[in-house]
């Protein structure tokens, strides 16, 4: 009797300690790997920042094959990690099945909406940040023409283009925005040569500022813009330092903040759709020492003004993905 009691007590104590020790957050990166200089790395930086600031520990894993999405999600959930963050929309299918099997575990997926009671879906208002980039382009350009280079032709990228065009036309209503997509396959994300060609073509059509939302292709756009004496606008991460003096600004998408927030909230993670926009530092335009010389006071004032109005709801930037059309095109 006493023995059983002791044993039971020991088991209970063990269960408690292991439960407490393992209530760490976890993050799964997509196939690109955590050092991809872009999306995954931003997520990784957010996790690292959380670890540094709170002294907490977290677990991460990189995928090697598609079958591992569900496997790793389950592994983390079974071992009691909570919350579990996924970087990328490709996890949606796996998450739909796993989330139902672990109702007490909280999950967060970035860039995708998964409708389940224990899932936080983080989506970004890319159109708002792009709107500000459009205003910056309008003030920087002497003439009436600016341009946009997209990666793969998907609705998400048109969302960037549409916000950019709207922002530009809010300053120069009669102006012209040339929009080009690099391709229709995933290869379009990594074709810097074609990105450069498109940029040159846009310059000969009169464009003075080019906004690249094209992953690795964008590096070719930024390079060519610097070579041709144009201004460019980077995307996702702060890319101002890549071509100092030529990159007007970068439309940053704070994936790191999304991860940081999810980790900070921990097991009490707020589920449902979490929209990251200008109001909660989800998107924005990057200002640092590399582009300080390019930002004029009236440009800065216009950007700040628009930021305030968007946050206040006085300006509503059209979301291309809501109806797959754009009034500013």
């Amino acid at each position, binding site marked *: 009797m006493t023995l059983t009691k002791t044993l039971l007590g020991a088991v209970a104590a063990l269960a408690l300690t292991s439960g407490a020790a393992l209530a760490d957050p976890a993050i799964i990166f997509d196939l690109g*790997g955590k050092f991809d200089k872009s999306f995954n790395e931003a997520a990784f930086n957010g996790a690292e920042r959380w670890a540094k600031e709170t002294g907490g520990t977290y*677990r991460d*894993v*990189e995928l*090697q*094959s*598609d*079958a*591992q999405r*569900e*496997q*790793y999600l*389950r*592994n983390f959930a079974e071992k009691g990690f909570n919350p579990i963050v996924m970087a990328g*929309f*490709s996890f*949606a*299918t796996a998450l739909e099945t796993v989330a139902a099997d672990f109702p007490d575990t909280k999950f967060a997926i970035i*860039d*995708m909406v998964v409708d389940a009671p224990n899932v936080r879906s983080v989506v970004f208002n890319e159109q708002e940040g792009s709107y500000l980039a459009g205003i910056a382009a309008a003030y920087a350009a002497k003439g009436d023409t600016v341009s946009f280079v997209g990666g793969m032709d*998907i*609705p*998400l990228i048109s969302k960037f283009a549409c916000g950019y065009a709207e922002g530009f036309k809010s300053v120069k209503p009669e102006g012209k925005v040339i929009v080009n997509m690099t391709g*229709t*396959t*995933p*290869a379009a994300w990594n074709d810097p040569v074609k990105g450069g060609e498109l940029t040159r073509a846009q310059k000969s059509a009169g464009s003075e500022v080019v906004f690249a939302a094209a992953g690795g292709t964008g590096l070719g756009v930024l390079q060519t813009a610097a070579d041709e004496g144009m201004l460019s606008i980077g995307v996702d991460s702060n890319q101002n330092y890549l071509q100092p003096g030529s990159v007007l600004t970068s439309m940053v998408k704070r994936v790191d903040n999304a991860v940081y927030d999810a980790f900070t909230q921990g097991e009490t993670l707020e589920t449902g759709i979490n929209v990251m926009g200008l109001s909660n530092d989800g998107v924005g335009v990057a200002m640092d020492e590399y582009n300080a010389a390019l930002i004029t006071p009236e440009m800065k004032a216009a950007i700040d003004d628009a930021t305030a109005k968007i946050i206040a709801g006085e300006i509503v930037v059209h979301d291309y993905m809501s109806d*797959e059309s754009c009034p500013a095109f």
Partner: protein
Amino acid sequence: MTKMPKWADAVLIPLISIFLAFLLSGLVIMAIGKDPVVAIKTMVQGAFGSSNGIGYTLYYTTNFIFTGLSVAVAYHARLFNIGSEGQAALGGLGVALVCLYVPWPHWAIALPAAMIGGALFGAAWAFIPAYLQAKRGSHIVITTIMFNFIGSALIGYILLNYLKVPGSMSTESTRFGAGAHLPTFHEMLAPLGIEFNKNAPVNVSFLIALLAAVGFYFLIWRTRLGYEIRAYGQSETAAKYAGINPVRIVVIAMLISGALSGLMAINNVMGEAERLIDNAVEGAGFIGIAVALMGRNHPIGIVLAALLFGFLYQGGGELSFWESIPRELVVVIQALVIMFTGALDNMVRAPLEKLFIALNKKKEA
């Protein structure tokens, strides 16, 4: 007596090679400051320690058996088919079309149809390089490599323009219907009272892969066609002299090879993902080359080698998951195994042969 016994050639050499590979891997793991014993334990435990682990190991194994057999058939005709990757991808398209456009009432009917679809598409993709080799003398290594890229671009194009769910961002088709769901080991073993993890992706196609290995044996060593393939592989001139049509053998061997690769899709596309995703093959075609070489192009060897690589995949995944060993290092371990069993074969063989000769001499004296 100058040769070593057959068992030493078939069993001892691979075992010593694998042992050496793991020894070196252990040193590499030590070099990054981790405990090699714990690492090996994690791998074995992760791959065979639970029915979930076994399920994943056998899932990968199934892929590698198909591609290994595919490479081996071509190899018996002295054709180096590096295109299994692309052929398996096209096989996936074949399987997906069969599963998407026919409302199957039951998997037992859907599976044979999907097998035909996968095999046909895989074989068709192998036919073009085979024809070019047989008729025009274009080297099959070059053409099959190129066809991997063409295949991947083609799949991307078809997925994006015809099969993708409208409005969705991911390049994948819609889910197949419930009638195309293949029974997993969990569903197959439950009636027998055996509890198998229900989340493991291993499914009935593992048995199909084993059947294919048996069929492979009969084809290569028990039929006239197999004899012709082997004869052509041994010596093209002698085969011609014996009245074997080289064009026919090259094309047929490649068609079978492509069909076997295409069959892989019943496992990864139909069995696991239940939809067509971009880059579904994930390098299994290239692993097939290592599997065929290591298995000495014999079905038993191929099944065992495929199991080893299944273990390396699943165990390696667990290693990076639990021990925070970067996935790149897991690839290094896999590469060491390939290097020792494939490329450095003679390093083990030569001294072992000498040892056996010395032992035999002693016995004779």
